[in-house]
């Protein structure tokens, strides 16, 4: 590769973006509004207590994303295609309902992110949310949102700033190390809710669909797959690293001073050690960018997966009257996502956190089908899962189901396990 500085800033940027593969792209979209909110709340509420989760979670994320990417490379088909062809209509409808619910939650949380960030800047959500929804919607209808998305993606590198901010906040490193190495557990509803949300936002169900179709769309086959595997591992690692720093920064700045996150104003304080009074601006900009990036991707991809699985015309290369279901579904998705946030007095951070809990609850449904497909020799040939991979993913599935059931049990019967 020729030296970047010789090519000039614009070309350097393009080159950087072109090198990024599906793994790193998915990872960046993963740090969306719901993610930022959940990581901030995790640190603020529970301090360093949940840091240990990051080690097994990173492993699980890598394993799960790798499986999906591998299926894309081997079969050349999307995940919803494979589920439909293997399991038939009933199952695909169930999975699509699950994906629809999870992604509707995510879309709502993206608009919550838009509202939270613009309110920090003193703009009412009643103006910001509809305007942003219209812009996002129009970009797709006009077919010109590709370049804008690229800019968003580049700007999402902003989250790297959590790393210096964490160091400047001078967290208690011995505590950080201790909690990272020593698992702790609690049956308190708050702890369980946040734990499910934390895993749900990091390993969200849409990511498996997304990375698989990105691999397919890029035309990656088993021959080039080894590079994609590296890209996936790197991407997952980056996501989790940044997430762990957000938790640590929030723990050091908020939990240490007993500040609870009610709005974005408190969450922004995690940037204070780095940016001082500019912390609000920095946080608002970062959150706004992340929300827009995901808001422009999630509704569109959801509509696409659903239409494709059901055999309906889909894709933005089609006109509205050629693919009416696709466009209507997309439109309704954006409208409902934005509409829910317009409800007066809706707690924005609550929405962002709970949508991620929903992701966590719904994750096992998708994982079970992925595991069945990836171990099917007719589909995967000699590229089925190794034993270790199966162990990690079945464990993840089992743990998520167990956590959900426990949470439900202690919500219905408080004091059951106390």
């Amino acid at each position, binding site marked *: 590769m020729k030296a970047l500085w010789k090519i000039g800033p614009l070309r350097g940027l393009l080159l950087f973006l*072109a090198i990024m593969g599906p793994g790193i792209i998915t990872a960046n979209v993963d740090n969306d509004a719901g993610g930022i909110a959940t990581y901030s709340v995790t640190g603020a509420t529970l301090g360093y207590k949940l840091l240990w989760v990051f080690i097994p979670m990173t492993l699980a994320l890598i394993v799960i994303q790798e499986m999906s990417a591998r299926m894309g490379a081997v079969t050349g088909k999307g995940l919803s295609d494979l589920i439909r062809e293997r399991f*038939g*209509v009933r199952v695909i409808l169930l999975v699509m309902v699950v994906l629809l619910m999870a992604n509707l939650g995510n879309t709502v949380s993206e608009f919550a992110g838009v509202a939270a960030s613009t309110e920090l800047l003193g703009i009412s959500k009643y103006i910001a949310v509809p305007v942003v929804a219209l812009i996002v919607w129009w970009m797709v209808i006009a077919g010109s949102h590709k370049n804008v998305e690229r800019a968003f993606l580049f700007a999402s590198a902003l989250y790297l700033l959590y790393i210096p901010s964490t160091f400047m906040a001078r967290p208690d490193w011995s505590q950080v190390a201790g909690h990272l190495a020593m698992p702790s557990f609690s049956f308190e509803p708050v702890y369980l809710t946040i734990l499910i949300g934390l895993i749900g936002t990091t390993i969200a169900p849409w990511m498996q669909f997304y990375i698989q179709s*990105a691999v397919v769309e890029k035309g990656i*086959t088993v021959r080039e797959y080894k590079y994609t595997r590296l890209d996936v591992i790197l991407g997952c690692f980056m996501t989790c690293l940044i997430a762990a720093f957000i938790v640590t920064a929030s723990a050091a700045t908020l939990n240490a001073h007993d500040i609870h996150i009610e709005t974005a104003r408190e969450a922004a304080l995690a940037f204070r050690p780095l940016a001082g009074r500019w912390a609000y601006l920095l946080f608002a900009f970062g959150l706004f960018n992340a929300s827009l990036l995901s808001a422009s991707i999630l509704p569109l991809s959801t509509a696409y997966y659903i239409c494709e699985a*059901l055999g309906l015309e889909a894709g*933005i290369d089609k006109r509205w009257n050629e693919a009416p279901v696709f466009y209507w579904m997309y439109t309704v998705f954006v409208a409902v996502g934005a509409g829910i946030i317009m409800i007066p007095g809706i707690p924005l951070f609550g929405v962002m956190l709970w949508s991620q809990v929903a992701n966590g609850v719904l994750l096992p449904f998708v994982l079970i089908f992925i595991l069945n497909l990836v171990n099917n020799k007719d589909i995967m040939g000699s590229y089925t899962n190794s034993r270790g991979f199966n162990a990690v993913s079945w464990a993840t599935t089992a743990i998520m189901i167990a956590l959900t059931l426990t949470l439900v049990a202690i919500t219905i019967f408080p004091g059951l396990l106390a």
Partner: protein
Amino acid sequence: MEKEKIRAQREFFLSRALGKPIYDRAGRSVGRLRDMAVRWDNHYPRVTGIKYAKDVQMLIGIDQIERWDESGIRLGVAFPGKLRPGSKGEQRPLLRPLSKEEIYVSKWLLDKQIIDTKGSKLVRVNDIMLAWIESGTARELILVAVDVGVRGLLRRIGAEALVRGRAQNLVDWKYIKPLESRMESLRLTLERPSLNELHPADLADIIEDLDSASRTRLLAGLDRQTAIEALTEADIDTQVEIITGMDSARASKLLAEMPPDEAADILGELPEEKSGELLGLMDREEAEDVRELMEYEENTAGALMTNEFIAFPADITAEECIDRLRELAPSAETVYYLYIVDHREVLKGVVTLRDLIVAPPRAELGAIMRTRIVSARAGDNVKRVQEMVAKYDLLALPVVDDQSVLLGIITVDDVMETVLPDRSGLESFTDFMTRGRSRRGWRA
């Protein structure tokens, strides 16, 4: 034909038939309808056998069935006790394994993608319509149509009532082409030609939508000329994927047969090492043509043009010219304009096909040619090319260098492509990174 004798009776859907109980002549339960085997050697596949239990790979022949109605399927023979795999009884001859010429309907067709050659697109099989037909004394159960609509989908989950009022979205089976390789064992001599009859641009759309494995199969099933035309019409990303996925020998052969400007576009997207290798495998002259075109900056007339064009010296007669044209025309990109060049290939004039036909046979081209020529320089940008083509109503525009040497031509269809907005594929949200780059711009 004996068409009037063939009567379709009692159409029904596969989804409603699956799971129906099967009884023998004595009314004893044999199993349930799990799948059907068909022989697809005509436009409409015929059902030849039924699968009666989940894990049994044996079929009951269609000729054993006496009655088939709402309540179930009744066999014309008696079975002493339940049929089990491996049970060695006198009934075994009634059961047979799937033969090579048969495929399972539910397993290999339902929920899969197939090609609808009438609508020229990929569709998903939501349900399948069957019908009993009678011709003379013979009774056959055939697959008549594929349901690709929402009604079929809801029927599968037993909720068709929700959309009673909506029209069925059925595709007649004669327009259906399979994708899966299982079909290769079938005698599809009747079916094959019709894929080749699809317009290459429609085929290109289908190819763009397919996964890489199905693409290779589909291309392999097309005749050579159709495959090349379809590939030429496909979008650049699909072209690059197909070429990269092939072994170099085949890839270079395909590229050599494509118009050089398309080949140059594809090669421009490949890593230098790969494009060098492919060019090396091509015929020297063809490789030279392509290499020349790859030199030009993106969005210039040079990048847009093809260097396959028809040029004649000024001193041949109209008659001679027409004779030569007969040989050249089949492979030329356009024949409507004939360019007149001197021995240094400097553009001197142009003769339209109409001029040529109305000219006296003995007239020399130099005498009938038009000398007021509209031409573009290789470095002109696309915008200027568009304006010229639109303003002068041209079907093709010659491209020359500073010394007026004719380098190539730009045909109106190449210009059209630059005018229409590019909304190809799903790139905008699944893979907005790698796809957005310009055709062969910043590889510098």
